[in-house]
């Protein structure tokens, strides 16, 4: 067989396969079957492969079992996702709140004159420090409390 013949065979078999897989009727397929023995054998193999592939897809009972298991896994995944938010987002918020308080305290401390001792501030000269600490603690507690009630 020369090169051109091989290419013709390739094209004709590909065209036949496309027609078979596009769902053309069996009757039309019979008309498309080649007279050439070699091509006809290849066409028969294509029809066999198509039939096998179709049978390999069918499995209603397996579908039902896999679907059930997947839905269970889906629910688990959704719960894990919520848990993930609780585990990560809430501590992050609490940490961020605490960090803000710390920054505020640092700023206040830096702005406090050196001769003014901290004990004095706590005693009434700069009364915002204990207020800020208390506010920070309250914010953190509120974040946790609210989140627990959202669950």
């Amino acid at each position, binding site marked *: 067989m020369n090169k051109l013949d*091989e*290419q013709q*065979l*390739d*094209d004709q*078999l*590909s065209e036949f*396969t*496309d027609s078979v*897989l596009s769902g053309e009727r069996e009757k039309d397929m019979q008309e498309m079957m080649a007279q050439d023995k070699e091509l006809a*054998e*290849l066409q*028969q*193999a*294509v029809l*066999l*492969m*198509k*039939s*096998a*592939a179709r*049978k*390999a*897809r*069918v*499995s209603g009972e*397996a*579908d039902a*079992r*896999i*679907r059930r*298991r*997947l*839905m269970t*896994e*889906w629910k688990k*995944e*959704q719960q894990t*996702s919520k848990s993930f938010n609780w585990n990560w987002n809430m501590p992050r918020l609490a940490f961020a709140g605490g960090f803000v308080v710390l920054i505020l305290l640092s700023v206040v401390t830096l702005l406090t004159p050196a001769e003014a001792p901290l004990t004095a501030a706590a005693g009434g000269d700069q009364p915002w420090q204990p207020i800020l600490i208390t506010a920070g603690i309250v914010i953190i507690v509120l974040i946790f409390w609210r989140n627990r009630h959202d669950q």
Partner: protein
Amino acid sequence: MINLLKSPPSHVPPTDEELVHSAQKGKQDAFVLLYERYLPNIMARVRFKIPEGDVEDVTQEIFIAVLKSLGGFKGQSKFSTWIWTITNRKIVDYYRSHKSNRIEQDDYEEVVTRNLSKHPTSSDSSQDDLVTVKHALGTLPQNYQDILLMRFVDDMPFNEIALHNGQSLEATKSLFRRSVAALAKKVEGTNE
């Protein structure tokens, strides 16, 4: 099925990417649609590669892997390519986990062929075509198996297969014809 996406009035089915996006947001219906869309082809591919007794388990593992990894899917490749990769990885894992075969990853294909030849698919007479083809297919070279599965199981047109394999369309059609010829010869040998 519930129309969970904002589809245009022409009832165009949602694309894979739309379904993935909805599933990532927690829409169960979207994931079910993806499952229904891909189950037939995935199961067929697994059935052609793995002994019948384990087909359901491996198919299930593939979809569970898809479910668990879905959040990380960023759409950098087509969803079909992504799920195809997971499928092939699970098939490799299957053969790797069967320690008794004592195989390395590189030669797992050889074991696929050996196992498929040893294990008939089914004794059901209505499955004769499938049994015959699966057995014959398992004895073909890997590139022949791949192109036949891509065209008949994955429904990939020839131009997509060419693109996937990095070949010209002519070379792809030629490989396909040689694969079909090899299959026909094996089937004929089986029937004799």
